[in-house]
C-alpha cells in the first residue's frame, strides 16, 4: 500500500466516509452482468445450500438445496444453475466480429496473420466476495469430470446432461479471475476496494456490508457507525441483520434456523415415503413442500441482502467514468472467452486437474505480464494512481522550461531535441535512464541527460515518434510551457522468451506430456458432498 492510500485511509477515519482510491473505473462492467450469490453448508467441501442468480436485479432466480447431503437434490441444484448460466454464456457466443491473430504457420514456421472470429462481447460473472471466486472454481472442479448417462451408461451416479459443461465454464471463469486486470469474473469486495479506501483495515474490507457502509453510509450516520452495525447488529432472534456475503453462513443461523428446518424437511420426507394410501400421501406431500418452502425462504432471507448489496456496488461503480485502457483489457477477456468457446465446440476434453509444464509456465508468464500491464495502464489512466508512482520515484511530472534542437550524428541526422523539465518530483534517474510519455496513446521514449539545480530541472533527450524527416513532425516534440508526465516504467509489455512446444518439453520439466489421456471422473462414493 502506498503512502497516498494510507493517507486516504486516515482521512476516511477522520471524515467518516470512504475516500477515492481512483478517479476512473479500472474494471470493465458489462451491460448485463450475471450476479451469483451462493451459499454453502458449513463443514462440507463447498456443498451448495442455495444461491441467488440472474441478470435482472428485480427478479433473481432462487435455487435451494433442502437437504445438502442428498446427491439427487445437489444434482438438481447444479442442473438448475446450468439452466441459468449456460444460456447466458451462449448468448454471447454467436455475435462475432472479424479479427486478426498472428499464428505460426505449421509448414513454413513463419509468423502469419490469420483471420479469425472474435466474440463481440463476453459474459461477465459477479460474485460478492473473494471466497465466492474460490467457490466458483471449486464448483467447476467438482463438475467438469462428471459423466452423464449419455457419455457413460455405466456411471453409477450419472450427472444431469449439462452439468459437466457448466463445470468447464466455471473452471474457465475461475482460472481467468487469476489474471490481473481481467473482468470475466469479479468479486465485488475486490472491485470496490480498488476504487475506494475506507477507515478500516483491508481485512475488515472483506465484509461487503461494512465496505458499502463506508462508501455510501445512510443519511446522518458516519461510515464507521454504519460499518459496525453491518458487522455486528443482530435482531431479536440473535440473527445478523446484515448476513455475511457468503458462501459461508453465520453459525448462529445454521444452528438456530437452518438445522431445525432441515430436520423438519427430513421428517416430512420420511413420513411421505411411509405413507400407506394416496390420501395420506397427498397430505404428507403438502407437508413436505411446506418444509421445502421454509428452507427456500431461509436461503432467500440470507442471500437477498447480499444480492441487493452487489447491485448497489455496481451502481456506485458505474458512476465512475471508465478508464481509457479498460476497453483494451476487456478485449483480452473477449479473446479468452472466444478461445474457450472454440475449445468446447471442438470437443476438446475438460481442463486437466494439473497443468503440464508448458501450460503452467505460460499461465505464470501471462499473469506476470498482465500484472505489469495493469500497473502501467492504471497509472496512465488515472492521475491518482500516477501520483503514487510519482511519490515512489517511478514517474515525474512538470513544466517544460526549455527546448533545444539537436541532431543525432551519422549519415542521416535525425532530430534528437533536448527538453528541460522543471519538476518537484524526485525520480530515480541514472545515466541514460529511459523514460516514457504517452503521445496520442503511444509511448514516446526519451533518455535522461543531466539534472540541474539539485534535481529540480531534468534534461531529457527525445528519441522517437518524431517522423522520418529531418524536422520533427508538428506536435511530436513538447513545447515550452507544456505540462508533461514521464514514467520510468514501460507502457507496453513485451512477452517473454518463447517457450518450447509441449512435445519439446525438456526432461527437467517432466519431458513431453505424451498422449493426452482422458482424465477419469472422480470416483463416486455413497457419502460424497459435492
Amino acid at each position: 500500500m502506498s503512502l497516498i492510500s494510507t493517507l486516504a485511509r486516515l482521512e476516511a477515519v477522520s471524515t467518516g466516509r470512504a475516500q477515492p482510491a481512483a478517479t476512473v473505473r479500472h474494471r470493465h462492467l458489462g451491460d448485463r452482468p450475471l450476479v451469483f450469490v451462493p451459499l454453502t453448508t458449513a463443514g462440507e467441501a463447498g456443498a451448495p445450500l442455495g444461491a441467488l442468480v440472474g441478470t435482472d436485479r428485480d427478479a433473481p432466480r432462487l435455487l435451494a438445496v433442502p437437504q445438502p447431503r442428498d446427491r439427487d437434490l445437489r444434482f438438481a441444484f447444479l442442473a438448475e444453475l446450468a439452466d441459468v448460466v449456460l444460456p447466458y454464456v451462449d448468448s454471447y457466443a454467436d455475435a462475432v466480429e472479424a479479427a486478426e491473430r498472428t499464428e505460426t504457420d505449421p509448414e513454413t514456421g513463419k509468423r502469419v496473420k490469420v483471420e479469425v472470429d472474435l466474440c463481440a462481447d463476453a459474459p461477465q460473472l459477479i460474485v460478492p466476495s473473494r471466497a465466492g471466486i474460490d467457490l466458483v472454481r471449486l464448483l467447476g472442479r467438482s463438475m467438469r469430470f462428471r459423466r452423464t448417462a449419455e457419455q457413460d451408461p455405466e456411471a453409477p451416479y450419472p450427472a444431469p446432461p449439462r452439468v459437466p459443461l457448466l463445470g468447464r465454464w466455471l473452471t474457465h471463469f475461475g482460472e481467468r479471475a487469476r489474471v490481473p486486470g481481467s473482468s470475466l469474473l469479479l468479486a465485488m469486495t475486490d472491485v470496490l476496494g480498488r476504487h475506494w479506501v475506507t477507515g478500516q483495515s483491508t481485512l475488515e474490507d472483506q465484509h461487503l456490508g461494512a465496505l458499502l457502509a463506508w462508501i455510501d453510509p445512510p443519511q446522518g450516520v458516519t461510515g464507521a457507525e454504519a460499518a459496525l452495525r453491518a458487522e455486528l447488529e443482530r435482531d431479536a432472534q440473535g440473527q445478523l441483520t446484515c448476513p455475511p456475503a457468503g458462501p459461508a453462513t453465520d453459525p448462529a443461523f445454521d444452528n438456530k434456523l437452518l438445522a431445525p428446518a432441515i430436520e423438519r424437511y427430513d421428517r416430512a420426507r420420511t413420513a411421505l415415503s411411509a405413507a400407506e394410501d394416496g390420501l395420506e400421501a397427498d397430505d404428507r406431500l403438502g407437508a413436505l413442500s411446506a418444509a421445502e418452502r421454509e428452507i427456500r425462504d431461509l436461503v432467500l432471507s440470507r442471500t437477498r441482502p447480499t444480492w441487493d448489496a452487489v447491485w448497489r456496488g455496481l451502481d456506485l461503480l458505474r458512476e465512475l467514468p471508465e478508464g481509457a485502457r479498460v476497453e483494451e483489457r476487456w478485449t483480452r477477456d473477449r479473446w479468452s472467452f472466444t478461445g474457450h468457446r472454440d475449445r468446447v465446440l471442438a470437443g476438446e476434453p475438460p481442463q486437466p486437474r494439473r497443468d503440464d509444464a508448458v501450460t503452467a509456465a505460460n499461465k505464470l508468464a501471462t499473469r506476470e505480464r498482465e500484472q505489469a500491464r495493469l500497473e502501467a495502464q492504471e497509472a496512465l489512466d488515472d492521475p491518482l494512481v500516477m501520483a503514487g508512482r510519482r511519490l515512489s520515484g517511478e514517474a515525474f511530472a512538470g513544466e517544460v522550461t526549455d527546448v533545444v534542437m539537436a541532431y543525432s550524428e551519422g549519415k542521416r541526422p535525425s532530430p534528437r531535441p533536448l527538453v528541460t523539465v522543471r519538476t518537484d518530483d524526485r525520480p530515480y534517474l541514472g545515466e541514460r535512464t529511459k523514460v516514457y510519455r504517452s503521445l496520442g496513446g503511444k509511448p514516446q521514449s526519451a533518455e535522461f541527460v543531466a539534472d540541474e539545480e539539485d534535481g529540480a530541472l531534468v534534461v531529457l533527450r527525445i528519441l522517437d515518434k518524431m517522423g522520418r524527416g529531418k524536422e520533427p513532425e508538428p506536435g511530436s516534440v513538447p513545447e515550452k510551457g507544456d505540462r508533461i508526465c514521464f514514467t520510468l516504467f514501460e507502457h507496453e509489455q513485451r512477452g517473454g522468451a518463447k517457450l518450447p512446444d509441449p512435445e519439446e518439453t525438456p526432461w527437467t520439466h517432466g519431458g513431453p506430456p505424451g498422449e493426452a489421456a482422458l482424465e477419469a471422473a472422480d470416483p463416486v462414493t455413497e457419502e460424497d458432498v459435492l
Partner: protein
Amino acid sequence: MPPPRTRGTALRHRLAELRGPDVPAKALDARALAALAANPGCARRAILDGAGVNKAALASALGSPSAFGQSQFALTRGNAFEAKVKADGGAELLRLVHEKLDRSAEPPVEARVPDLTATGPRGRTARTELELREATAHPGAWTLLDHPMLALDVAGSPAFLEPDAVVVHPDGSWTVVEIKSFPLLDGSADPAKVGAAARQAAVYVLALEELAARLGAEPEGGTARLGAEPEGDAAPLGAEPEGGTARLGAEPEGGAARLGVEPEGGAARLGAEPEGGTAPLGEEGDARADGTGVPVPRVRHRVLLVCPRDFSNLPAASAVDIRKQRAVTARQLARLTRIEDVADALPEGTCFSPELPAEALAAAVESVPATYAPECLSACELAFHCRTRSRQEGAVTSLGRPVRAELGGLTTVEDVLAAARGEAGDPDDPAVAALRRAAALRAEALEAACR
C-alpha cells in the same frame, strides 16, 4: 537454586485471584496455545489466557461479545469423518501412517489400541503416559492411541491437550495425527487451514517431547526426580533441555556418572532456561542414546494430516513438517512465563470475573496493555473490545500493521493528519516530509480529476 515450587504456588494463587473467586479456570487447548503465536506481544491476552479467564464470557460482560461460533453441521461432519478414519481399530489410519511416514517398517497388521478411558484429565494423562511407556518399552509393534491426553505446563498451570491420535511406530518413535474435515483437493489443501493444523500439531509435539524426556530419564533412578520436575513452574520448556542434559550426563559412564548427575543437572538447567525453544531442535538427531542407556523415545517432527479426499468422505493423508511451527510455539510458550511480570505490574485487587459490573471490568482490562491489530479479529474473543478502544485512541495500527509501519513515529490518526497538513511535526523528519509530499500529490491528482 530458588525454590521453584513456592514461587509457582504463589503465581498460581495470584492467577486464581485474577480469575475471581469460585470461577473455574478455562483450560487452555491446543488451538488457544497456537493462537498465542499470532500476537505474542499482547500482555492482555497473555495474562488472561495464563490465568484461565474465559475470554468469551469476559467479552460479553464488557458489552462487545465475540463472534466466534461453530456450526453444528461442521461439527457433525468432522466427527463422522474422524470416526470413519479410525474405524476397524484404526486399520486405515495406520496404513496411512505406514505409507506416508515409515515405509521401511513392518506394515501394520495387528496393532494395539489400548483403552485410555479414565476419570478426569489427570487420570487420563496418567493412563496415556502408562500406555506410551508400555508401547515404547516393547518395540516391534504398532500402537494407536485414540484421543490420548497430554499435559503441558503453561506458565505454572497444566494445560490438558487431546490430540486426535498418537501412533507409536515399531521403532519406538511417536507420531502425532491430526484429522481435519477440510478437503485435500487434487493433492493440495487450503494453506491457511493447513497452517493452523500444523501449529496445533506443534503444541502436541511439544507436550509429547516433554513426556518423552521424562520417560527416557526415568529408569535411571536418580535422574527420575530431575525428570519429574518439569512441573517446575517457571519454565515449562526449560524442562526439556534439562531432560536432555540429564540423559547425556547419565549415559556414557553409567554408575559413576550418576553421582555427578544431580549438581550437573541443576547447573545445566539454569543455563538451559533462557534458550528455551531452540535447544530441543538439536535433540532429534541424537534421540537414541549410544550404548547402554535407555533410549529417549523420538517424537517425529513430521505429523500426519488426514483429510477427506476431493469431494468424497475417503481419507487422504499427507505428512506435514512442523519443525518451524514447533520452534515458534516453543519460543512463544517460553515467553509466556513472563506473565509473572505482567501479574506483578497489576494493581492490587484486579479481578476479571465476568460477574463484576462492566465499568469495573473495563478498568481491570484497561490496566493491562494490549497490542491490537486487525488480525486479532480472527483469533481472539476480546478483539472487538480492543478494537473499539484502539479506534477511540485513534491508533493507526487499527488500520493494519503495514499502515503503522509506514508512518514512523506517528502513531495516532490526528498526529498523522496534522503532520500531513503541515500543522505539526518536524519537516526534517523523513516520515513527515514524505507525508506532506504524499498529501500534496494526492490533492493535485484529485483536483486534476475534478476539472
